[in-house]
């Protein structure tokens, strides 16, 4: 019987930080040399923890199950007969199947010990107090403080101007927003243009080449509105041909 059976119900899976923590615990409990882990024994103990957690209906984190699989795989490889011929060191076949696990355990163990060191430092710091300074009170003592010292209204204006310029350069959307195009204005514009062109105009001829998306959209809406009002008409010669818009009177 292993020692841990006696303590079965005091030490539970959820007392451990993870599978490596549980393995280190088993290694310490059994006073095992970490460089020569009796893998069958440890695997059995490890699995009994998992089973116990299952019996208690605890959620077993997947990490614990992955480790169980790793242990079983190492155990299986240990059972394979050792290759007869001497193989080079570093050769995959000659490697101790436990090696990778040992490296991980040693690495984890270091940080576990450092965590304990941090814990003691944390406890030390809980003994000391810094002053309870009220910064706002302190600042008040300095009397009226000008947060815009060295900044004039002209700096402010300049800042605004710079921002505004950037907006105009980079975001044509703003230009449009400030354009304030109304459908009514646009409708009048279309009517004026068409009045000048008795033979009609194509859609794109109704606005200048550099027109914003918004202007194109509003122009389109204006055309729809004018058609509804029976002020304009349109003609299309071929199925995919140009649409010519002209004033109703013509």
């Amino acid at each position, binding site marked *: 019987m292993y020692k841990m059976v006696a303590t079965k119900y005091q030490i539970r899976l959820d007392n451990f930080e993870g599978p490596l923590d549980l393995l280190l615990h088993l290694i310490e409990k059994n006073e095992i040399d970490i460089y020569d882990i009796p893998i069958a024994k440890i695997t059995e103990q490890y699995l009994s923890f998992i089973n116990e957690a299952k019996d208690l209906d605890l959620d077993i984190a997947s990490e614990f199950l992955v480790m169980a699989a790793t242990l079983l795989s190492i155990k299986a490889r240990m059972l394979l007969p050792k290759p007869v011929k001497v193989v080079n060191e570093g050769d995959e076949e000659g490697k101790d199947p436990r090696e990778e696990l040992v490296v991980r355990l040693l690495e984890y163990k270091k940080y576990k010990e450092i965590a304990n060191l941090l814990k003691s430092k944390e406890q030390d710091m809980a003994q000391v107090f810094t*002053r309870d300074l009220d910064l706002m009170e*302190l600042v008040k003592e300095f009397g009226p*403080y000008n947060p815009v010292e060295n900044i004039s209204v002209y700096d402010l*204006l300049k800042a*605004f*101007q710079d921002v505004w310029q950037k907006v105009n350069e980079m975001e044509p959307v703003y230009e449009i927003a400030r354009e304030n195009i109304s459908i009514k204005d646009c409708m009048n514009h279309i009517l004026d243009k068409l009045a000048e062109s008795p033979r009609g105009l194509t859609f794109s001829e109704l606005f200048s080449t550099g027109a914003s998306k918004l202007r194109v959209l509003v122009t389109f809406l204006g055309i729809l509105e004018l058609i509804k009002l029976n002020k304009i008409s349109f003609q299309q010669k071929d199925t995919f041909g140009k649409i010519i818009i002209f004033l109703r009177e013509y």
Partner: protein
Amino acid sequence: MVLFPKEAKAVIESLLFVSNEPLNIEQISEITGINPGEISELIEEIARVYETDEHGFYLREVAGGFIFMTKPQFKNYIEKLYKPHLSSLSHAALETLAIIAYKQPITRSEIELIRGVKVDKIINTLVEKKLIEELGRKETPGRPILYGTTKEFLKYFGLKDLAELPALENFITEKDED
């Protein structure tokens, strides 16, 4: 707990050190169990130590209690220490302030639309520095807060009212003449 006189003095000093409010003798007595008469004597001893020139702060009796304060002659240095907290505005803050000054009342998201970056932290800083304030809520979905400049803003810039802000048009024409 029985304390040796030296230890008693150190305990009292540690309490005076952490407190940001004047501590009175009764409070100290309650915490330490030392009798008020003794506390009074020890406080006097402590006060004498800090009066000497080599110390930067001293014990003052204020509002019926005792509190450590820095000596008045070092005020300028302490102000310098806190200047970074009060420090002048960053360029981002200045831009935001300029937008608010010229476009008020304005919402946070309207400013963000113009500057193209988040401005919540800057808005908070400007409110803390009393340069801007909430003017109300915009009657649009979400009822966002509207910001505008404060009376202090006018004071800091030496303006009578907002109309005294240099006009945008003037600036632009001047620029064009360059």
